[in-house]
C-alpha cells in the first residue's frame, strides 16, 4: 500500500476538490471559515526526504464542521412511521412520514467526503482499494482531530450522503416532493447560494408531516438511498461507527448518518502521547495513525510503526520528520489493530 498523508487543504487544492464535488452536484469547495472547521485532504506521501517534498497527488478530502445550524438553520426530514390499523377490517398499514425539522442542530458534521476517481493524468480509474484507503485516512484523521480537541466539537456527529439521481442528474426525491414547493432549479440555487441554499429552500418546504404514500413511487424508493457513487463513503462511515439516523436530506432524500462521538472506536481508542528520544520503533512495533499539529496550527496525519517506551511513544525518524515533530512533542495516536505490522 502506498503511503498516504493527510493535511489541511490549501487554496491550491480547491479546484480539484471542487471537481470531485461537482460529480454529485455539490457546491464548490471553499477554505474553512472558522478555526475549528477543517478541510482535510489525503495525498500520496512524497519522498521521505522532508515535509516540503510531500506535495503528492490529491486522493480524498473531507470537511469537518464543529457545529452546524446555529447561524443558518439546517433542515432535514425525519423519516417516521405511522400505523393505521383496524383489526376488524384486517387493515394494518404502516405509513412512512417525512417531518421537516432542525433535529441535528448543534451537531458536528463530516461533510463532502469525496475522492479522486482517476489514478493519474492518463485517465485510468483509481483502484477501489486506493479510493477506500484514501477516504478512510481522511475520515479517521477527522475523528482524531475531534478526539484531540474534544471540547471544541459536539457530542453528536453527523454525515449527510448524496441521494439517488437519474441519468440526467435529476433527483427523483426532489422531483416528487421538493419541486412542488420550489419551482426553481436546485442546481442553479446551489451554485448561487452554496450550501446555504438548502437552508433557504427549507423555508418553502412543507412544515407538516408528509405521508410518503402521496409521493410518486420513484420518490418513495429514493428515501434514504445513497447514490451509487457514494456507497463506498457510506460503508466507511458505517465502519467508523456512524449509523442511519432516520433523517434524510431535504433536496435529494440522501441518508443522514449519525453517531455519538464519544462512543466511536476512533475516539475512545486514541490518545495523546509524548514522543520518545531515539530513531525508530522497537521490536514490538504496531501501526498507528498519528496526528500532529505544528506551531502554526497546521495538521498532519499519517500511519507509522510505533512502539511504546514507558509512557512515551517511539516512532521512526522519517515519520517524525513528516509530522514535523521532535522528541518530547505530543502526538495523537490511534492504534490500527487490523493492520498491525
Amino acid at each position: 500500500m502506498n503511503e498516504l498523508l493527510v493535511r489541511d487543504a490549501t487554496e491550491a487544492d480547491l479546484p480539484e476538490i471542487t471537481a470531485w464535488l461537482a460529480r454529485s452536484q455539490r457546491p464548490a469547495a471553499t477554505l474553512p471559515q472558522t478555526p475549528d472547521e477543517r478541510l482535510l485532504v489525503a495525498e500520496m506521501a512524497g519522498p521521505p526526504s522532508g515535509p516540503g517534498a510531500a506535495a503528492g497527488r490529491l486522493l480524498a478530502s473531507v470537511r469537518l464542521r464543529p457545529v452546524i445550524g446555529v447561524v443558518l438553520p439546517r433542515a432535514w426530514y425525519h423519516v417516521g412511521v405511522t400505523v393505521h390499523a383496524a383489526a376488524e377490517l384486517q387493515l394494518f398499514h404502516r405509513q412512512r412520514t417525512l417531518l421537516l425539522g432542525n433535529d441535528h442542530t448543534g451537531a458536528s458534521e463530516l461533510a463532502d467526503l469525496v475522492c479522486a476517481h482517476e489514478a493519474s493524468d492518463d485517465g485510468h480509474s483509481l483502484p477501489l482499494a486506493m479510493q477506500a484507503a484514501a477516504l478512510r485516512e481522511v475520515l479517521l484523521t477527522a475523528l482524531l482531530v475531534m478526539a484531540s480537541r474534544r471540547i471544541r466539537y459536539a457530542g453528536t456527529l453527523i454525515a449527510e450522503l448524496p441521494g439517488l439521481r437519474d441519468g440526467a442528474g435529476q433527483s427523483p426525491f426532489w422531483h416528487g416532493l421538493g419541486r412542488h414547493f420550489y419551482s426553481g432549479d436546485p442546481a442553479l440555487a446551489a451554485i448561487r447560494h452554496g450550501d446555504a441554499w438548502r437552508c433557504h429552500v427549507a423555508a418553502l418546504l412543507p412544515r407538516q408531516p408528509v405521508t410518503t404514500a402521496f409521493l410518486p413511487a420513484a420518490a418513495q424508493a429514493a428515501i434514504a438511498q445513497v447514490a451509487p457513487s457514494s456507497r463506498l463513503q457510506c460503508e466507511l462511515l458505517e465502519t467508523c461507527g456512524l449509523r442511519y439516523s432516520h433523517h434524510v436530506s431535504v433536496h435529494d432524500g440522501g441518508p443522514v448518518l449519525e453517531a455519538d462521538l464519544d462512543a466511536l472506536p476512533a475516539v475512545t481508542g486514541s490518545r495523546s502521547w509524548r514522543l520518545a528520544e531515539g530513531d525508530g520503533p522497537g521490536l514490538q512495533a504496531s501501526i498507528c495513525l498519528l496526528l500532529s499539529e505544528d506551531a502554526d496550527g497546521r495538521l498532519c496525519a499519517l500511519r507509522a510503526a510505533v512502539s511504546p517506551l514507558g509512557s512515551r511513544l517511539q516512532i521512526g525518524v522519517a515519520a517524525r520528520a513528516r509530522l514535523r515533530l521532535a522528541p518530547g512533542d505530543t502526538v495523537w495516536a490511534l492504534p490500527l489493530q487490523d493492520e498491525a505490522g
Partner: protein
Amino acid sequence: MNPSRFLFRTALPNDLPAFERFAADSAIGITTLPADRAKLQARLERSAQSFASLDDSSGEEIYLFVVEDLGAADGPRVVGTSGIAASAGFHDRFYTYRNEMVVHASAALQASNRIHTLHLCHDLTGYTLLTSFYIEPAYQHTLAPQLLSRARLLFITEFAERFSDRIAAESPGLADDSGRCPFWDAVGRRFFDMGYPQVEQITGGRSKAFIAELMPQSPIYVPLLPEEAQWAIGQLHPVAELPFSMLQDEGFDADTYVDIFDGGPIVEARVSMLKTVAASSRMAVQAGEGSGAGSRLVAVTRRQDYRALISGAPAGVLDGAALARLGLTEGETVRTAALAVAGDDGSEQ
C-alpha cells in the same frame, strides 16, 4: 306547472316504495339514501320517532320530508325528498377537510408560494345537517325543488331548540357511474386499497369517522396530489348542481370544507343568516282569495304531520284548498317567507 299542486310533508312509512325509487336513481355518494330496503325502512322509522319525540331533543334525530305532486295525471305522487339530521356526527366526530392556504416564502430564493392544504377537522361536528335531497328529473325545473329545499329551513326555524344554530350540507363530489372517484383514488385508496363503494360496504354503514380515523391525521399538501384529484376538490357531481345552487342562493358558504372521501363541497352557514330563515315570520292565517306580490312558502307550526306549500295569496291569507292541504283552520298560526326566486315573480332578493 302551477306551484300550488305541490305539498311538502313529513315522510311516512308508506312512502317506502318512493324512497326505493329515489335511492335506485341517486348518485353514489348520497349515503343518506342507501339502495337497501331495510335501511330505508329503518330511516323512515327513525324519522317518525324524531317527529314524535319530546321537545328536549337528544340530537340524534333525523327528519325526512317528501314533496307530493297532487296534480299528477294518475293521482298524487311523491316526487322528491329532503331531510335534516339534527346534529352532524352525533354519535361520533364529523370529519371534513378544511381548505387552508399557507404561504411559504424565502427572501433569499426570491420565492413565495401559496400552498393549498387540506386539514382533517371536526369543525362541523354538532352542526345541523341538510341531507337526502332528491327530486325526480321531470320536476327539476318546477318550484318543487325550492319547496323541498327551503320548507325544511322553516321547520328548523320553527323548532330551533331541536337544532344547532349552525347548519351544513354535504354534496356528492365527482365520481363516474362505476363509483370511480378521482379524489378517493388519490387520497383514501392509498390507505385502504379499495374503491369507495367497497369501503362503504365493508364498514357496514357505520359512521364515516371509523374510516377517517384510519387516514392520515396531518394535513394533505394538495400540490402532491395528481392533477385529476386536485381538480376534484370542491367539485360537484353533476346530479347535485340543482340542490347546491339553491343552497348557495340561500347564503351558504361553499369555500371552506370538502368531504374527506370524494372531495365534494360541504356548505355551511349560521341558520339565522339564511335568506329563508331571516325573511320568515309567524302570523295567524285568514281564509281568502286573491294574489299577493309574489309566491310565498307557507308552513304549519305544528311538529307532527308537518306540512308546507307554495301560495300565491298575500301574506297571512290562504284559500280553502290550501288550508285543507295544510290541515289548518282559519286563525291558526303559520310560518311564511317570500319565495322570491328569479323567474318566479321576476325579482330576486
